[in-house]
């Protein structure tokens, strides 16, 4: 399947120029409205430049966040199945692209199971915090401050995951995938973490079986996703370097997720 993807010139995601896409002008709508209002006003005050300059700069770093929330129930269910049991996914892993207005852009998540979304990562992160609080409470160590520290720990873990993916992309040439895509891919790890955390609450010993499983599944999911992203974004195809980096990506999931899943009062360890 990816034979015809390789020699094609890379199909970068449009860098969010304010052109009409399948989801319309990126800065209309209530969802993006407050980004434009908030960040635009702030940036205008700081940079002292015109609003369009600030907007175009912001759109270079953040693609339209509205795209990532075009989800529905069925997509969420199927995507969770893909994230938690990636080897059962029979179809292909490439994102469906459609030519819109002369540019190639990807279909939104409702139409494409392989598209990243931000709803699942946010909800999984929230569930992780709640489950962590629950497991702290069941051990009698719950305080609101401890929960706040766990929130910070989750954020740090998400940030590390995003850094890892970004560094992988950068070291292989162009790191031009949109930042929110990487944030979304990094946040999918929390879904597996929630499963492991839930099982820890239910029966303590199942955690030791489910945790390596989660790490493995998240590793496989990230490897398969990043492989497609690399094919799309990176011009030169250097096989061995690709493969070593992807293997490293999967192996690093183990310490990272074990650290995140280890819920105790001392948040750093």
């Amino acid at each position: 399947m990816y034979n015809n993807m390789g020699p094609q010139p890379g199909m970068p995601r449009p860098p969010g120029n304010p052109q009409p896409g399948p989801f319309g002008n990126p800065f209309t709508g209530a969802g993006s409205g407050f980004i434009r209002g908030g960040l635009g006003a702030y940036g205008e005050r700081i940079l002292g430049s015109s609003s369009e300059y600030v907007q175009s700069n912001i759109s270079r770093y953040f693609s339209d966040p509205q795209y990532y929330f075009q989800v529905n129930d069925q997509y969420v269910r199927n995507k969770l199945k893909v994230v938690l049991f990636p080897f059962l996914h029979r179809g292909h892993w490439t994102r469906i692209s459609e030519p819109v207005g002369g540019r190639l852009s990807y279909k939104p998540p409702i139409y494409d199971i392989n598209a990243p979304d931000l709803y699942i990562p946010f909800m999984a992160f929230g569930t992780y915090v709640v489950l962590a609080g629950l497991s702290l409470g069941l051990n009698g160590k719950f305080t609101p401050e401890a929960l706040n520290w766990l929130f910070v720990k989750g954020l740090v873990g998400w940030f590390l995951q995003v850094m890892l993916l970004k560094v992988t992309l950068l070291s292989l040439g162009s790191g031009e995938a949109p930042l929110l895509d990487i944030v979304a891919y990094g946040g999918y790890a929390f879904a597996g973490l929630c499963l492991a955390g839930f099982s820890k609450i239910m029966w303590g010993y199942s955690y030791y079986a489910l945790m390596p499983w989660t790490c493995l599944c998240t590793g496989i999911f990230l490897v398969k996703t990043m492989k497609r992203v690399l094919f799309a974004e990176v011009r030169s195809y250097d096989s061995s370097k690709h493969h070593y980096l992807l293997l490293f990506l999967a192996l690093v999931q183990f310490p990272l997720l074990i650290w995140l899943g280890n819920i105790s009062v001392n948040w750093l360890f």
Partner: protein
Amino acid sequence: MTKDFAVPPVVFPTGGSSGGANVQQRRFSAIPFQQPPPQSSSQIPFLSFNMGSAAASSATTAGPFGGTIASSSSFGGGGGGSPSFEDEEPLLDELGIHPDQIWKKTRSILNPFRINQTVHKDSDLSGPIFLYLALCLFQLLAGKIQFGVILGWIVVSSIFLYVVFNMLAGRNGNLNLHTCTSLVGYCLLPVVVLSAVSLFVPQGAGPVKYVLAGVFVLWSTRACSTLVVSLADGGEEHRGLIAYACFLIYTLFSLLVIF
């Protein structure tokens, strides 16, 4: 041998019944105040303790000062250029607190099976503040001082719900932050009830507390998601997704109550 001396009777010009006014006269006699000017012209409403016109109702039941101020207020209206006391709005109206509306909204959430959505159309923040204080009070009775924590979590969770709803609803989502905070606050009512009930649950009954908390959290979630979807556009096809976000929020608050 006693020497009689004439004690002039102390007469206070109270207009009401003289019998009941005796006790009040005693109390009033202990208070030094200047003789009030004659009744018609009192430019400083609050200072004219004019008891000559204390109405019958005020003489019997009101406290010592209530009657006087009530009487003086009826004369203070004729005062000078400053805004008169009579023309001012009642304090609660001026503050924007409407107790009957708050009570109606609270009662609409008390029924877990059918929620009247029309009363929540105009959002207010004073009901949520009352519910927040009630939750903090019950937590205080349980020995946990969590005023700042609960306020912070209400703010963060309403921002969270606002972002999630508007992103999911897309172009035509029009939930605004005031309405969102109002709804999150009102739907805290089941959590307040949970914290009150859990004061009476015996200490060792673990699973009972969890089941109880689960029931109340589900009640809260149902109320909040129904209200949010019905009050703002664009949320109908995302009910389940929004309900999960509300569920997370109220589970967080119930963690504070249980543990």
